[in-house]
């Protein structure tokens, strides 16, 4: 593997990072700062916030994250298969159909259980 191919990526990271930090510093230098107590409160329609802790959130988001994890791993598994399918031919095709068949059973189960319905 030729790592010099990745050198421009590193330089991109350095330049982009330098630019973003530079702009941040520039804004700090140029902008006036007059903090007051009311200004530094979190925004809540002009009132003082009712609550000073991190607000609770719907557990449904966690479920979506879990589903994403499963499917993303499976998609990553598809990538190398897709690139080499012309070499693996029918054997590769039917192996993947078998794997996706199992996955589809799981997907139908999720669907029937109502996991995919947002409430």
């Amino acid at each position: 593997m030729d790592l010099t191919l990745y050198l421009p990526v590193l330089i991109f990271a350095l330049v982009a990072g330098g630019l973003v930090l530079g702009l941040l510093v520039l804004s700090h230098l140029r902008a006036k700062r007059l903090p007051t107590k009311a200004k530094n409160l979190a925004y809540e329609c002009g009132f003082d916030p009712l609550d000073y802790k991190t607000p609770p959130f719907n557990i449904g988001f966690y479920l979506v994250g879990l589903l994403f994890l499963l499917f993303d791993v499976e998609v990553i598994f598809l990538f190398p298969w897709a690139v080499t399918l012309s070499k693996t031919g029918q054997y590769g095709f039917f192996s993947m159909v078998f794997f996706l068949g199992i996955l589809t059973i799981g997907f139908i189960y999720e669907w029937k259980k109502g996991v995919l319905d947002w409430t």
Partner: protein
Amino acid sequence: MVLELFGRVALAIIFLLLLVAYLIYVERKIIAAIQRRKGPNIVGFFGLLQPFADALKLLHKETIVPSLSPKILFLLAPVLTFFFSFMAWAVIPIGAGYVFADISVGLLYLMALTSLSGYGILIAGWASQSTYALLGSLRSAAQMISYEISLSLVLVPVLLLSGSLNLTAIVEAQQNLWFIIPLFPMFVIFLISVFAETNRAPFDLPEAEAELVAGYHVEYTSMSFAFFFLAEYANMILMSAMATILFLGGWLSPCEGLIHLPGPVWFCLKISLVLFLFMWVRASFPRLRYDQLMRLGWKVLLPFSFAWVILTAGVVVLTQ
């Protein structure tokens, strides 16, 4: 050699920044035209200096860090978002050989960076310690990961046809037939997923002005806000570039007669076309409800792109 590369990269990034700034201007103009308004027309000729005025104004605004927020995380979030959206450009080929890093896993690199940009939004929402910001960022993250699955599934048929993860090779595989023709349904799904992935209308629920004020960037001001804003538009251009490379034949000219126009020109024209679509859609469609958005992602796009992956694979194997 390295120094020269530094210079070229710096030029490219500055050019991109300008492009992003003018994309915002063009969007305001197009939406104004669709709504029969004038749009920005005061600063400079036809309002052409408006992006600079906006940038200078934002630079001189006060940075407000909410007193309950972890300061480092709060400042880090927009920096990360901005950083990732510009990093991705290292692998985009704008013409035959016009690419900084012609790495063999270009597409994976792009997918990795688009996934990472979710972190910026999550950190921003959490670090703001505000109800609106947290809700907005959670919605945004859930939406991004839901549509990321169909987005990456759409890439699989393209990989099946091109047989490579290298972006230059993918474009060259379209020499005879652009992938938009055999894979048209995938192109449509790709566009829908991209609208959701970049949090654009009609999927701009994270910012839903009417209910969440501005979603995850409620608490942000000054340059930090500008970073989020620029990153959003830079991501739009990036996604248009991806659509161009994967489906519209990259820098290839559409017909024999026009082959003399250089590749990068074609590339820019195609990107502009996709970007115009972004704006047109924004001006034309109302925002979806959140449950509709989730249903579309998980119950419509996902099974459909699954089926299409199998179908394409079957056709590839049969025609070997």
